[in-house]
C-alpha cells in the first residue's frame, strides 16, 4: 500500500487540471507573474506534458515596475522550459506614464486589470491559467478552479458553475473565457515545501540580503532602480530584507529578515504572526476589495 502524501495528491490534482484545459479549450495561455506561485505552476505544467514542452505560451502582463531580478528569472525560465514568452504592456498606460508613485490604484487598474484584458483579447486566448490559491484571501476561497468569465471578463460570484468530483466544465460561447487556477488547493506552506523538495528556481529576492530600502507609509520598500523618487531628506538605508510576495517594487513591502535558505524562509513564515498578503498595498483599500477587483476582471 502506497500512501500518497498531501503534496503528491495536490501535485496529481494540479497536473490533471492542466491536462483538462489543454484537452478542452482552443487557445490556453499561462499567466506568468514570475513569483513563487507562478514558479510552482510552471513546474507542474512541465511535469504534466513531459516529455513534450507545455503546449501553450507564457504571458507576462508587465507593468514595467517589476523588480529587475524578476525580469532576469523570467527570461531564464522561458528559455529552460522551451515555451514561448509573450510580454504585454498596456500601451495606454505606457503613453500616459502611469506609475505607482503618482497614480495609486489607477496603476494596478490600468497596467494589470486592463492590461490583462487587452492581452487576452489581442491573442484570443479562451483559457488563462493563474497561480491564485484559495488560502490567500476570503473571496478566493469561494472561487471555482475553472472560473468562468463573461465576454467583458467579468466574474459573477453568485452564479458560479458547480464543480463536482474531478469533472470540470470548460464549455463556453465564443468570446467568453475561463480563468483556471491549478494550485487552488495549495497553501503557502505547500508552495514553499514543494519548491524546496523539487529544487524549483525562484527569484533571489525571496531570500534575505542587504538591499537599499526606505520606509514609507508603513511599508518597507526597496529602491530597485533610479526611477524611485526619493522624498526630501529620504536616504536609502541598507537593510537585510527579503520579500514574501513579489509584485511591482514600489508597492511591495519587504520584511527585515536573516533567512537566506529555503528552510529558514519557511521557518520564518511559520513563526510569523501576519498573513502573506499583508505586504500588499492593493488589498487594504476596503473590506471586500479583492472581490470587487476580481468582479472587474483582476486575476
Amino acid at each position: 500500500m502506497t500512501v500518497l502524501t498531501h503534496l503528491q495528491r495536490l501535485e496529481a490534482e494540479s497536473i490533471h487540471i492542466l491536462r483538462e484545459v489543454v484537452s478542452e479549450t482552443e487557445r490556453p495561455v499561462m499567466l506568468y507573474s514570475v513569483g513563487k506561485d507562478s514558479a510552482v505552476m510552471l513546474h507542474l505544467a512541465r511535469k504534466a506534458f513531459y516529455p513534450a514542452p507545455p503546449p501553450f505560451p507564457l504571458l507576462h502582463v508587465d507593468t514595467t515596475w517589476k523588480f529587475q531580478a524578476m525580469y532576469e528569472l523570467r527570461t531564464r525560465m522561458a528559455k529552460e522550459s522551451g515555451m514561448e514568452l509573450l510580454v504585454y504592456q498596456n500601451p495606454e498606460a505606457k503613453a500616459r506614464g502611469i506609475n505607482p508613485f503618482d497614480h495609486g490604484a489607477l496603476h494596478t487598474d490600468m497596467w494589470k486589470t486592463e492590461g490583462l484584458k487587452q492581452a487576452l483579447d489581442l491573442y484570443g486566448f479562451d483559457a488563462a491559467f493563474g497561480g491564485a490559491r484559495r488560502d490567500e484571501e476570503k473571496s478566493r476561497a469561494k472561487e471555482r478552479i475553472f472560473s468562468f468569465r463573461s465576454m467583458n471578463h467579468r466574474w459573477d460570484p453568485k452564479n458560479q458553475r458547480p464543480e463536482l468530483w474531478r469533472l470540470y466544465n470548460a464549455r463556453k460561447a465564443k468570446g467568453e473565457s475561463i480563468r483556471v487556477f491549478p494550485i487552488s488547493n495549495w497553501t503557502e506552506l505547500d508552495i514553499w515545501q514543494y519548491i524546496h523538495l523539487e529544487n524549483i528556481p525562484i527569484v533571489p529576492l525571496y531570500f534575505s540580503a542587504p538591499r537599499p530600502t526606505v520606509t514609507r507609509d508603513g511599508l518597507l520598500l526597496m529602491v530597485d532602480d533610479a526611477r524611485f523618487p526619493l522624498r526630501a531628506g529620504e536616504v536609502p538605508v541598507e537593510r537585510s530584507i527579503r520579500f514574501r510576495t513579489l509584485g511591482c517594487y514600489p508597492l511591495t513591502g519587504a520584511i527585515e529578515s536573516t533567512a537566506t535558505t529555503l528552510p529558514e524562509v519557511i521557518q520564518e513564515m511559520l513563526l510569523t504572526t501576519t498573513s502573506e498578503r499583508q505586504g500588499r498595498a492593493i488589498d487594504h483599500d476596503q473590506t471586500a476589495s479583492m472581490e470587487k477587483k476580481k468582479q472587474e476582471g483582476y486575476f
Partner: protein
Amino acid sequence: MNDTTSGSSYKAHDLIAENIDAYLEQHQHKSLLRFITCGSVDDGKSTLIGRLLYDSKMIFEDQLAALEADSKRVGTQGQQIDFALLVDGLAAEREQGITIDVAYRFFATDRRKFIVADTPGHEQYTRNMVTGASTADLAVILIDARKGVLTQTRRHSYLAQLIGIRNLVLAVNKMDLVGYDEQRYKAIVADYRAFADSIGIAAFTAMPISGFMGDNITTPSSNMPWYTGPALLPHLENVALDVTAAQDQPFRLPVQWVSRPNLDFRGFAGLVSSGRIRPGDAVRVLPSGKVSTVTRVVTLDGDLEEAVAGQSITLTLADEVDCSRGDVLAAADNPPQVADQFEATLVWMSDEPLVPGRSYWLKLGTQNVSAQIQTPKYQINVNTLEHLAAKTLDLNAIGVVTVTTDKPLVFEPYAASHDLGGFILIDKFSNGTVAAGMLHFALRRSQNVHWQALDITREAHAAQKQQQPRVLWFTGLSGAGKSTIANLVEKKLHALGKHTFLLDGDNVRHGLNKDLGFTDADRIENIRRVGEVAKLMTDAGLIVLTAFISPFRAERDMVRAMLPAGEFIEIHIDTALAEAERRDVKGLYKKARAGELKNFTGIDSPYEAPEQPEIRIDTGAMLAEDAAEEIVRALLL
C-alpha cells in the same frame, strides 16, 4: 472555556523554532483529509470551522485584528469574536449573515493536512452541499443540541450517503447552551441512530461539542467528563482514509491527453482512478477492446517502477493501438463495462428544469457524449425520503432516471468508482452545468457486451473492395419512389464494379423487424435496427442503400451519428403528398383515408422533411432514371 493554548501542540512551534529540517520532514509526510461540514442555518458550521482554524493557530495577527473589528461591526456575538466571519467570504454573505456558496479552508496539524468545504444549510442550496461533498473523504453533520434532529439533518445525511461519504461524524453542537447535559446528548444520538439505520448508514461517530466555547474541539472537555470518546480534531487526525482502498481495485486510467512530442514517442496521460500499474502489465483499451502491454511509466523525474491510484502519469504501450482522449486503459483481464443506457440518480442544479428527451452534453471522466434523459421514474423527497411521481426535475430536486447516450460509455457503478460512475450534464445552449449524476447500472442489452477487437479492420475490408463505404439513406413519403430510385442506383453502382446491398423497408419487415408495428415507438426501433445493420455492412466495406419512409428527423440523425463523418448520405425523395396519394401504387393511401390503416405517414402521422439532405430529388421535375443518374454522379464514386 477550554484552554485553547492546547492548540499550540498542533502547530509544533518548538520544533519549527529548534529544528526546521525535522519539522519539514514531518510535514512532508502528512496525509490529506478532505471533509465537509453540514448542518442547518445557525447550527454553527462557520463558527466551528473558524474555531478549528483559530485553535490550530492558522489565524494571523492581521487577520485577527480585522476579525475583531468586523465582529464589532457586523458580528452576531456582541463583543465576542464571531468566528463565522473568518469563513463567510463574499460581501453579499456578510450582509445576509449566511453562507451562500461552497468555501474551501485549509489547516494542518502535526499529523494531517486538512481541506474543509464549508457548505450551506439553506434549503435551496442542496446543490452546494452535493458539490462540496463530492470531493470529501468525511462529513461532519452538525446538530444544534437545543433543537435535535431536524428535517435538514436528515437531508444532509441522506445527501452525504448518496454521494458516497463513508466517514460520518455527528457533532452535537452548542452543548454549552443545554448545560452540557448528558441525557440530552444521548437522546439526540439515539434519535439519529434510528434515522441512520433507516437509510442504510452503517456507522457514524457521535460527539458532544461547542464550537463557540471550544469544548471537545482539540482536547477532551472538562465540562463533559461523562464523554470518553475522542475530541473532534484528534478524530479527524486518526480516521482511516478511503483513498488507499482504491489501490486494491482493478487498474483504470481514463485517458486525458495523448502526448506526441515526436514520431518516436506516443504517451497516454491521465490520473489513475484505481489500481496500480507497472511496466509489463497487460492493459485493454476501452471501448475498442484492443490489448497491449505497458512499456514505461514516464515522468519528468524519470520512469517509475509502479504508479498507483491518485497519481497523474503518462504511460507508453508496446503496440501501435488506437487510443485517444475519452478511452479508458484498464486491467486486461478485468475491464469495466461499456453501455449506452443506464439507470442513474440525478441532482438537478439549474434554475431551468430538466426537459425530458432533450439532448444534453454528458461528461464522465474524460468522456464527452450526447445524452437524453427520459421522464424521471420518480423524484425523492429529501426530507421524508418518499418516492414521488415527477414529470421533470427542478433546481435542487433529486430523481432516478434513465439516461441514453449517443455513444457507448466506459463506466462503473458509482458505488464502485466515483471517477467512472459520477457525471455532470451540461446544457448545450447555455453551457452551464445543470446536473450531477451517479450511474447505478446499465439497462438492457448493452450490459456486459464487450467489443471484440478484430484484426481485419473496416479499413481493410473497404480497401480490398477499393471503395469508400457509404450509407445512401433514401427517405420520403410512401409512394414517393424511394425503392424504385434506390433500385436503379444500385444497378448503376453494381455495373461500375461497386459492392453494394439494398435494404428495403418492406423486405426488412418480413424478417428482422416482423415483430414491429407502426406506432411511433416501433417506427423508431425499426429505424434503429436498420441503422445498426447498415453500420455492420459498412464495417464490411459495403455501400448500403436503404429505402425507408423514416419520417422522424431525430432517428435519421441517430443513424448519422452511428457512422463516421461523411459516410451517411441522406437522400430526400421529395414528392408532394397529393402526388404520392394520386399515384398510390400499393393502395395504402386509400386504406388510410378509409381509416383501415392507423398511423400512416402524411395522413395521421407526421413526416419531418430533412433540413439539409446531402441530396434532394424533386420527383415532380425529374424521371426516376435521371434521378438515379444524378445520385451516382453526386457520389463521385
